[in-house]
């Protein structure tokens, strides 16, 4: 089989809030016209700050929320056109690991029951010893099978979340900030586990994070989002940024090395409200290079396959 595992075209999500008698109705575009391809076996990173639409994008791709516009094609099947029953069957092949390990497990379920759930909802027979095997695969002792989530540490819970996602041996896993609520020492454990599992099971990952350093460590290709739009796709982890926002993100991280201290040149300006984005490029309010054109016209992602960027004045 050739071709990308997943292709999305012009994906857009518009949210409405308020309305009714007591407040004005307001609309925001959480994800605007995003097109991407993910190759088999690839780890595609999506990075951006809060409110950039990265988590919405993840849920759109898995159709946990419905897109306003656009297409999602998974291994040749158009998900966006799939009826509910076919989509549910398709979910065997796609899975998601969530950010919050505390609320992603039902507090009333034992781990054995959590791990049996994928089989149960897909009406598949669960092989004997499956629970023990799944626990072992994510480095947890079998004895935890009868425990409840509140008896586990955050890292252990996230391992359970990963085991659940991989239970039906999916091809594609969306990782929505899987380490954001964990301590750094645990974060590194989980990332190492995810890398091992990918090698063993031949998985394709969409890895969502706010941490550019982590994404550059873990991913093959990196999509940078700002206020709902893709502003740049870094073709590899070494690529120099071409969008001023990506550049600012890179300059905002601090290396754990006093020898590499740098002069901080923070972004000026304020982040615009997602309900009132500027007419042109959303980054104009904070960009040092913004011109009149940037303020009036919205740049689109260049079709340069080597290194797409959405900027009139790329670096």
């Amino acid at each position, binding site marked *: 089989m050739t071709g990308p595992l997943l292709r999305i075209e012009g994906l857009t999500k518009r949210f409405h809030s*308020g309305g009714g*008698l*007591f*407040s*004005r109705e307001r609309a925001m575009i959480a994800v605007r016209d995003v097109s991407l391809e993910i190759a088999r076996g690839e780890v595609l990173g999506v990075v951006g700050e809060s409110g950039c639409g990265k988590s919405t994008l993840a849920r759109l791709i898995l159709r946990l929320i419905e897109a306003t516009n656009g297409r999602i094609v998974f291994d040749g099947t158009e998900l966006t056109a799939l009826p509910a029953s076919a989509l549910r069957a398709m979910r065997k092949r796609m899975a998601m690991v969530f950010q919050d390990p505390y609320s992603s497990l039902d507090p009333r379920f034992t781990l054995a029951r959590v791990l049996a759930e994928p089989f149960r909802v897909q009406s598949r027979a669960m092989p004997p010893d499956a629970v023990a095997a799944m626990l072992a695969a994510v480095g947890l002792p079998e004895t935890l099978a009868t425990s409840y989530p509140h008896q586990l540490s955050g890292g252990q819970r996230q391992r359970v979340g990963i085991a659940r996602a991989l239970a039906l041996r999916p091809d594609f896993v969306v990782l929505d900030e899987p380490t954001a609520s964990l301590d750094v020492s645990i974060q590194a454990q989980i990332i190492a586990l995810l890398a091992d599992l990918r090698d063993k099971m031949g998985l394709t990952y969409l890895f969502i994070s706010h941490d550019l350093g982590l994404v550059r460590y873990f991913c093959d290709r990196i999509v940078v989002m700002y206020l709902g739009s893709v502003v740049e796709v870094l073709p590899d982890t070494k690529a120099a940024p071409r969008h001023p926002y990506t550049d600012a993100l890179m300059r905002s991280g601090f290396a754990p090395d006093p020898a590499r201290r740098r002069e901080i040149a923070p972004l000026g300006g304020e982040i615009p409200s997602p309900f009132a984005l500027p007419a042109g490029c959303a980054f104009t309010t904070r960009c040092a290079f913004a011109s009149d054109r940037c303020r009036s016209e919205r740049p689109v992602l260049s079709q340069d396959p080597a290194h797409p960027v959405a900027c009139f004045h790329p670096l």
Partner: protein
Amino acid sequence: MLPWLIRRVLMLVPVFLAVSVVIFSILHFLPGDPIDNLLKVGSPASARAKMEARYGLDRPLPVQYGIWLGKVLQGDLGTAIVARRPVAELIAQAMPHSLRLGGLALLFSSVVGVTLGIIAALWRDRWPDRAIMGGVLVGSTMPNFWLGLILMLVFSVWMGWFPVSGARGWNSLVLPVLTIGLGGTALVTRITRVAMIEAVRQDFVTLLHAKGLPPWRIELLHVLRHALIPVVTILALRIGWILGGAITVEVVFARPGLGTLLIKSLGQHDYPVVQACLLMLAMAVMLGTLLGDVVQAIMDPRVRAAMG
């Protein structure tokens, strides 16, 4: 805020209509016929028909409703079938008694409840807290009418401090207000205590201490102000609750208020009076929720912002 207020008041119109339909139709489910009370035993059918026509009871229900509502809006609540007096007159007589009792009970439970709630929160998990919360709980487990009778027995009969019943003079109000107030106090104390304790846990309170502000200032200007938002909201929403307490207590103390009127007219199947009493109580409840929303908006800028 003014456009919001106007919209909020306009919202009451459909609610009022819905409530009036319910009140009107409920009464037609009631068994028993007031006409029976008026007719002499063995009166001819024609006398009954005449009587029904006189009170408009022979028309189709929607028409009766339309006529009734039109009159209500003009302040004409009909004529009491048993008492044979304009209902508006009866209501006007009863209303001041109920307002006085309800208002004082509300005041009592707010003041005492907030005070006790503050004390309990400040001495959380120590004896003042335990004593207050225990006392408040015990107070709220007694049926209102029973408490009223016991208070009457002790303070009026044995001690002779207050009149046994009736509505003459201010001292006749003491026991009824206490009886209703104790129930309301329990509610207010509990909410105040929880709201205070929750407010204290907020980050901004830590920061206020870190700014070096005196503790009394933090408790009164920040924590209490914060805690009062839910207290006022719930208090306003449950004005009806306190009125409910008033119904039974009025009967116990034989006070000529709305509650007594309602119970009496229910017993006599006197439709127009029951309708009017329910309408008045419903209006009080609706005004209470309106008041709650407005006070909340005044106290909390976030609520104002959400209104747009």
